[in-house]
C-alpha cells in the first residue's frame, strides 16, 4: 500500500510541476507580448495581502459590535459604512450587503453557480468556498455541513442562506461572543475569522 501512495504523490508532484511551468510560460508570453508589467503579479498578490483582505471585514465587524449606530448604517448601506472606516470597495464589492446574525438566526453565504465573494471585505475566497461538494451541500443540508466545520448551532436557531447569483456580495456580521465586554476594537477584530464572516464559523472569546 505505501508503494501505491508514494506513486500517487509522485504523480501529483509531477502534475504540480507541470502546472507551475505552464503558468510561468503564460506569464512569460504575456511579458513578451507587452500584455503585463514585470511587477503586476507581485502587486496583485500584495494588494490582497495588505489592501483587500479579511482584516477589513474584521475591522468592520468589531466596529459594528461596539457602535450600534454604525451597525445600523452598515446594515442599511454597507458600501457607505465601510467608507467611513477608510475601507475602499471595488472589484467584487460594488454592491455589498451586510446581514446580522443573532442568537435566533444564523446566516450562511454561498455561491452555487460560481464563487461570488465580497473581496473588499474578505480578500480572495478560500478553497472551501469554491469546493463543488460544499456548494452542492450547503444549500440543502446546512446543519450537516456546519458540523463538518465544527460549528454547533442550537437546534432552534433558524438558518438563512444567501446564494449569490447576480450583483450583491453578502457579508455576515457574526454574533459577538460573551465575555468581551469593554474590549477594544483591535482586540475584538483579532477574534474574527473569514469563516465567521460567511457563516461557516462562530466567534469565540479565546
Amino acid at each position: 500500500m505505501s508503494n501505491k501512495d508514494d506513486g500517487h504523490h509522485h504523480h501529483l508532484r509531477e502534475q504540480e510541476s507541470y502546472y507551475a511551468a505552464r503558468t510561468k510560460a503564460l506569464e512569460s508570453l504575456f511579458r513578451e507580448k507587452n500584455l503585463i508589467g514585470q511587477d503586476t503579479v507581485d502587486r496583485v498578490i500584495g494588494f490582497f495581502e495588505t489592501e483587500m483582505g479579511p482584516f477589513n471585514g474584521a475591522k468592520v465587524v468589531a466596529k459594528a459590535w461596539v457602535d450600534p449606530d454604525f451597525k445600523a448604517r452598515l446594515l442599511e448601506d454597507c458600501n457607505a459604512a465601510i467608507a467611513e472606516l477608510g475601507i475602499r470597495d471595488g472589484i467584487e464589492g460594488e454592491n455589498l450587503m451586510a446581514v446580522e446574525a443573532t442568537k435566533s438566526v444564523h446566516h450562511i453565504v454561498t455561491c452555487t453557480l460560481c464563487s461570488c465573494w465580497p473581496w473588499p471585505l474578505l480578500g480572495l475566497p478560500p478553497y472551501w468556498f469554491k469546493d463543488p461538494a460544499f456548494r452542492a451541500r450547503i444549500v440543502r443540508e446546512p446543519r450537516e455541513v456546519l458540523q463538518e466545520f465544527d460549528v454547533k448551532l442550537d437546534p432552534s436557531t433558524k438558518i438563512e442562506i444567501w446564494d449569490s447569483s447576480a450583483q450583491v456580495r453578502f457579508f455576515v456580521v457574526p454574533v459577538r461572543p460573551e465575555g468581551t465586554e469593554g474590549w477594544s476594537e483591535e482586540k475584538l477584530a483579532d477574534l474574527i475569522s473569514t469563516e465567521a464572516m460567511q457563516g461557516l464559523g462562530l466567534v469565540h472569546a479565546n
Partner: protein
Amino acid sequence: MKLQQYLGGLENVGPVSTEKRVFVEEWEKQLFGVHMCMMGTGIWAWPHLRVKAEGMNPLDYFKYRYYIKWLGGMCAFLIERNYINEEELDELTDYYLENPDAPLPEKGNPKVTQAVVDYMYTGDDPYRDVANNPVFKIGQRVRVLDPPSAVHTRLIGYLRNQVGVIDEVYPKAVLYSDSVPTDSISVPQPIYRVKFMTREIWPERPDTSDSLFSEVFESYLEAA
C-alpha cells in the same frame, strides 16, 4: 442539463473541503496575478471564465482543483482569441519544466500594473441607466421559470419551478454581460431578491423554518 448549473442540492457528494487557504501552491498566485491582469486590461471578464467552467465535463469539474480549472480555462480562452498560440505555450511550458529556475523575460508593459490596481479599486458597475420598470413588487409570489439549457446562465438549477416571494426590488436596471451567450440576461433588466423556504425546495428534508435568499433576473420569473 449542465451539472455545474445544477450544483446546489446535488446529493451524495461526500465530505466538504474545509481548506481555509486561498492558494495551496505558489504557482496559483502567479496564475491569479495573470488572471487579474486580464481582467484589469479588458482581455476577459468573469462571464468568460464562467462559460468555460459550465462547459467543462462535470466529472473533471469535480476532479480538478480550483486553480487547475482556471489554468485550463485561461489558456483555452487566450488560444481561441489568438492572444497566444498553443505551440509557443507548449514549448515554453517544456522549457520551464526542464529549467524551473529560469527567469522570466525582463520585458513587459510598465503601465499595466497601475491600470490593474485602478481596476481592482473600481470594479464593474452592473447598473445601466435605462428605464427600469419592474414587473413584480415586494411581497408578490413569483415562480422561477425553467428555460432551455443555455451555454451560460445565472439561473440556479435548484430554483427552477420553485415559488418564492419578492423580498427586494433593486433600484436600477442591471446588465449581466452582452459578451457571452446567455439565456435571457444579456439585456438590462430589473433584478429582485427572492425569498424561498428551503422546506419547499427540498420537502424530503427535515422540516425547518430555514429560508434561502437569492437575486434573480426578471426574465427568469413569472407571477405565481
